[in-house]
């Protein structure tokens, strides 16, 4: 599947960027969906997609149908914005194209659906992200500690964590 076709499909589920505040002279601009084509040589990925957290499963389905491979799932803690960003990296085994799918969840309620049913490899990645960030992937068959001790109650990659 070409990147143009993928872009079209992602546009249906992507989030809309916040419209710039209307000034006294300029009328309010239409919000734009966040699907950005990036330069592979600069960024290392070809498509940067931001979706609402409840749509990550739809994004995973688009990627699965296009025969992309899930490479990793990770989080980024944006403490100042009180948000956790979840980043999914997909790659195409034929062309080497790479798609980054992002979703942001509030730090207080870090919940989003598991994509384990579509990409079984996500099972471990989600457990790891749960360890490190306390992210809760609803629908995951066994969201227990993977790398941390089984009785760990801390999430070391949160920016306000200190040992």
């Amino acid at each position: 599947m070409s990147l143009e076709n993928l872009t079209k499909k992602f546009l249906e589920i992507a989030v809309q960027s916040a419209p710039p505040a209307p000034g006294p002279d300029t009328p309010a601009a239409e919000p734009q969906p966040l699907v950005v084509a990036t330069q592979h040589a600069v960024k290392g990925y070809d498509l940067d997609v931001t979706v609402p957290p409840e749509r990550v499963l739809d994004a995973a389905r688009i990627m699965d149908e296009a025969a992309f491979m899930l490479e990793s799932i990770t989080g980024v803690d944006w403490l100042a914005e009180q948000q956790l960003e979840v980043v999914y990296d997909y790659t195409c085994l034929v062309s080497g194209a790479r798609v980054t799918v992002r979703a942001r969840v509030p730090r207080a309620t870090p919940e989003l659906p598991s994509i384990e049913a579509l990409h079984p490899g996500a099972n471990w990645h989600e457990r790891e992200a749960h360890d490190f960030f306390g992210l809760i992937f609803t629908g995951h068959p066994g969201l227990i500690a993977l790398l941390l001790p089984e009785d760990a109650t801390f999430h070391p990659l949160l920016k306000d964590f200190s040992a």
Partner: protein
Amino acid sequence: MTQGTQSIHRETFVLNLGPQHPATHGVLRIKLTMDGEYIEDAEPVIGYGHRMQEKMGENRSYAKYLPNTARLDYVAAMFNTHGYVCAVERLAGIAVPERAEFIRVITAELNRVASHLLWVGAFLVDLGGFTPLLYTFDDREQILDLLEATTGARLTFCYYRFGGVCNDIDDDFVAGTRKFIAHLRSRMPMYHAFITKNIIFRKRCEEIAVISAETCRKFGATGPVIRGSGVAYDVRKLEPYSVYPRFNFNVPVYPEGDCMARYRVRMDEIEESLRILEQALDQLPGGPVMAEKVPRILKPAKGDCYFNVESARGTFGVRLVSDGTDKAYRLKLRSPCFSNLSLFQECSRGLLLPDALALLGSLDLVIPDIDR
């Protein structure tokens, strides 16, 4: 449970493989549910060697973290360092001199050969054959000697730096590498004669633990594992980095998906790496090995990037997020062994225990790379 003969037949027991077991090559535990000699379920338990490498990458400067990267996959440490320095260079916009890129390819490919040689020996030990290990270690030793003279380390290389490499290679290294290429080429027929054609080895590997290409994709398995299932996925070809596009080399692919296919891929890769080495030595340009004006304290621009390298075990990826300070805001290390092991539970179901150990060996795991 129902009574009668059925319940006797269905009786299972739990068997712990590891965390201290020679076949797991490190501190890996596998919780096996056995039905006699057959595996009903195999749950890998990992994390015994977890060091929170990603946090360490966030709480110290880029240069201070650099030596850590060699402690992930210590059998093929060059690739981890390569992925990390390339990601930082990409974000900081540092251009690497041509000669340094050649030296990186040469040392990385030497490391790949060393890693595959170690794997062949260790895999044969897993299968019950001890002798090949002594031969492969003998050959691997020569690579380690070559790399030691240039990099100062035998395993945990910290040779690549942001903007180049820390030490130029000399004539001895070039001559020694050429000699080694000829030497290993003369040894390959011997390896094929006493391993590839060995009837016991073939019976232990052929049609054992077949992994489909779709399973590899679903679990994110890369490297020789997916190429042994018929998919020509190689980062050096699909997302060319460094000076790899300048060299002629093939991506060995075997469609069978069994342990033998994964073995054959690695044996062919040794020969392809020798081809790359030969061409790189022939074309080796002069010039500096470090970029000029690399700031002592790196502060890459705000933003994120991803960088992938083809390590000896698969795709090693680095996702780097910078907030413009001298420390990474987020460093994600995508380990190839992590994803390769994740398919074990699925693929070992119904296998005989010795066959599952053949599968485990054929995945070529380095546990500290999984645990990070």
